[in-house]
Structure formats: structure tokens, C-alpha cells
């Protein structure tokens, strides 16, 4: 199963490396988002206090929505999703492969977003690189776990482009809260270890529950 998931991930990455369609559009969109926030919130060269954490996660959530929609739109256009589901592979492996693809894509976006926001909003996002990476990784995994399942479910639905954010954002509220609070705690002048650890633990619990639930439901919602 792990090998199958790896094969699907490699296929997605190969397509992406050759075309670059989703990576470039997602990245450009995320950067544009950050710029809009910079124009809206930075007054006389002074960024708002604690604004950077919120802006980072909003940019990730928006860009994630875009990437999820495009990743499955591509599979739908060429009917390759049907081929994937027809293949003699366990469904959870297909889900895992797609999930990892989205996580890699979002990680690449975050690698650009974090330094950019640190620069534009004078935030100390890189003061604790290990914790920053841990919060980002666990938050991205939780967001992508729910998003991959919903985007896959919606492939055959009418008006899927509008429905994805409508379903995704209410469900991922805890990820956004925990991500923003955890990141904000990292930005404080003195390191608030307890608070960061609490939000990280919440994110890990969320990841565990929602990845398990997705693996279980993917089979039954993708049957036809």
C-alpha cells in the first residue's frame, strides 16, 4: 500500500515538474494574497502586531483551496481519476498518494511564504525554525487531509468549484485556530513553550483523527 501511494505521489510530482501548472498558479496566488494584506494592513511602514500569523495561515488556506481544486480538475478532465479507481489498488492508497502530493505542493508554497511574510511584516517567523516547521507541517497535513477527501468527493458533483471552500473552511476551523495561535506564540519576544506545545498537540490529534476518518470514508464515498 505504501508502495502504491508512493507511485501515485511520483506520478503527480512528475506531471507537476513537467507542466508546473498548479505549483506556479498556487504560488503566485499565495504571494498576491500576502501583497493584498500588506497593502491593506501596513500603515506608515508599521505592520500590525501579531498580524503575520493570521496572514500566513489565510494565505495557506486560500492557496490550498486553489491547489486542491486544480489537482482533481486535472484528473477529471482526462478521466484519469476513473482509471486510478479502476486500477487494482486499495482505495486508501490512492487517497494517501493524492494527499502526499498536495502536502508536498503546499510545503513548497510555504517555503516561499514564510520568508516573504517575515520580510514584509517584520515578523520573527524564523526565530524557532524547528517549531515553525512542526506547526506548519502538522497544520498543513490536517488541512490537506480534509481537503483531499472533499475535493475527491466533489469531482463528480455539480458546482464543485464553489462547494469546495463552502465545505472545507467550516471543517478546518480548528486547524486554522491552532495554526494561527501556535504561530503567534512563536512570534512572542520570549518563547512560550507550553502554549506552542499545546497547539502542536491539538494539531497532531486533529491529523490523527481526520486522516483515519478520511481513509475510512474514502472507500465508501468513492464507490460508484
Amino acid at each position, binding site marked *: 500500500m505504501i508502495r502504491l501511494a508512493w507511485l501515485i505521489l511520483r506520478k503527480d510530482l512528475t506531471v507537476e515538474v513537467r507542466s508546473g501548472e498548479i505549483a506556479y498558479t498556487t504560488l503566485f496566488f499565495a504571494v498576491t494574497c500576502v501583497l493584498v494584506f500588506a497593502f491593506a494592513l501596513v500603515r506608515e511602514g508599521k505592520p500590525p502586531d501579531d498580524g503575520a500569523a493570521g496572514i500566513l495561515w489565510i494565505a495557506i488556506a486560500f492557496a490550498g483551496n486553489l491547489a486542491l481544486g486544480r489537482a482533481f480538475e486535472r484528473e477529471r478532465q482526462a478521466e484519469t481519476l476513473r482509471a486510478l479507481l479502476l486500477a487494482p489498488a486499495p482505495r486508501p492508497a490512492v487517497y494517501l498518494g493524492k494527499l502526499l502530493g498536495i502536502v508536498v505542493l503546499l510545503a513548497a508554497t510555504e517555503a516561499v511564504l514564510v520568508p516573504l511574510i517575515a520580510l514584509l511584516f517584520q515578523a520573527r517567523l524564523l526565530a524557532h525554525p524547528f517549531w515553525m516547521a512542526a506547526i506548519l507541517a502538522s497544520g498543513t497535513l490536517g488541512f490537506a487531509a480534509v481537503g483531499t477527501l472533499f475535493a475527491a468527493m466533489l469531482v463528480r*458533483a*455539480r458546482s464543485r468549484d464553489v462547494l469546495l471552500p463552502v465545505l472545507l473552511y467550516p*471543517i478546518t*476551523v*480548528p486547524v486554522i485556530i491552532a495554526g494561527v495561535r501556535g504561530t503567534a506564540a512563536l512570534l512572542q519576544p520570549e518563547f512560550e513553550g507550553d502554549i506552542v506545545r499545546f497547539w502542536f498537540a*491539538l494539531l497532531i490529534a486533529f491529523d490523527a483523527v481526520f486522516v483515519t476518518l478520511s481513509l475510512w*470514508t474514502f472507500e*465508501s464515498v468513492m464507490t460508484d
Partner: protein
Amino acid sequence: MRAATVCALMFALSPLVIASADYESTMGLVQKIFYYHMPSAWMFLVSGLVCGVASVRFLITGDARHDRTAWAAAEMAVIFGLVTIVTGPLWARKAWGTFWIWDARTTSSLVQWMVAWAYLILRKYGGPGSEKLAAGLALFGTANVAFIYVSVNYWRTIHPPTSVVPKLPFTMGFPLWYCVAAFTLLFIVLLKLRVRLEEQRATLDSLYLSMDEQG
């Protein structure tokens, strides 16, 4: 039908029962909104639970009856959630001095209300096959309750703990339980009506189909 009549009577009499309750010492008259706020909030919670459980059973068995129950319960969640979200801020304006506070229970209720709306939007605009997607959404929404609650509760909560309810004096406890009974009855009546409507729609559809087959 009889249940509906009893329910209507109970609601008609409820202003009298609530008027007979003692005034709360610090909040006075405005506290009486509590007799509608809390029962509707409970029914909102129950609707969400019913929707989640019915959706899981639908995902496991594929039986359309559970799906109809889940749909009806989601509509109830939107209605009772609306009552809760309208009465809450009216009370909060007087009791806390502001219409809205991002406290654990307000935030989690609001998010659950949005999930219920998302469920209905998905049912309406999702096209064929959306019932399975909606069941998945309801399952995730139910699992989410705990996470939202923990995450917001970590900030700070301003709602009184639920242990307040059994300690209420009789003059305030009786109107409260009266209203809880009235709201529960209303929930059951509406849910049954809504499920029956869906059942008859399904029967009608299958009759049309069989007529088409006969030519």
C-alpha cells in the same frame, strides 16, 4: 397531529409560565430570554447529533431511510441554531455588554451552524450523488465538535458551566424544564413531518418510474 396540538398549546402558554418565574437578581427581565435560548441550543445540539449518527449509519448500511433522517435533522439544526443565535446576542447585549464574544460556546455553535448550512447547500446544489458527500460532511462535522470546543475553550469561556442547571430554584427550574419539553416536542414533530415528506417524495418518484416502465 395530537402531538402538534399539544406542542402548539405549550408554546402558547409558555409566555405565562415564563412570566411567573422569579426575576434573576442582577440581570432582571432580560434574563427571561434564557427560557428560550437554552432549550433551543439543546435542540440545536441534538439535531447535530441525530444528523451525525444517521449519516454514519447511512454510510455503513446505504439505507435511504437514514439519509432522510440526516437531511431532516440538518434542517432542524439550521432552524434551532437560528433561534439560538438570535436569542443569544440579544441576551448577551444586556448581560455581557456586547452582542458577540468569541467564547468557546458561541464560536463552536457558529461553526456547527455553518456546517449545517454547508450540508444543506451541498444537498441542494451538489447534484446527483450528493447524499454520500453530505453524509461524509456530517461525519466530519460531528468529529469536529470536540476539536473546535477544545481549541476555543483554551482561550477563555464566559458561558456558565452546565452544572448550574440542576441547582436552579424551583420557580426558575420549572419554566426552564417546561420550555425544554416544549422545544423537544417541537423538534420531534418537525423531524417526523420532514422525514415523512421525504418518504412520500421517494414513493412518488418510484411510482413515476414504474409508470414510465409500463409505458
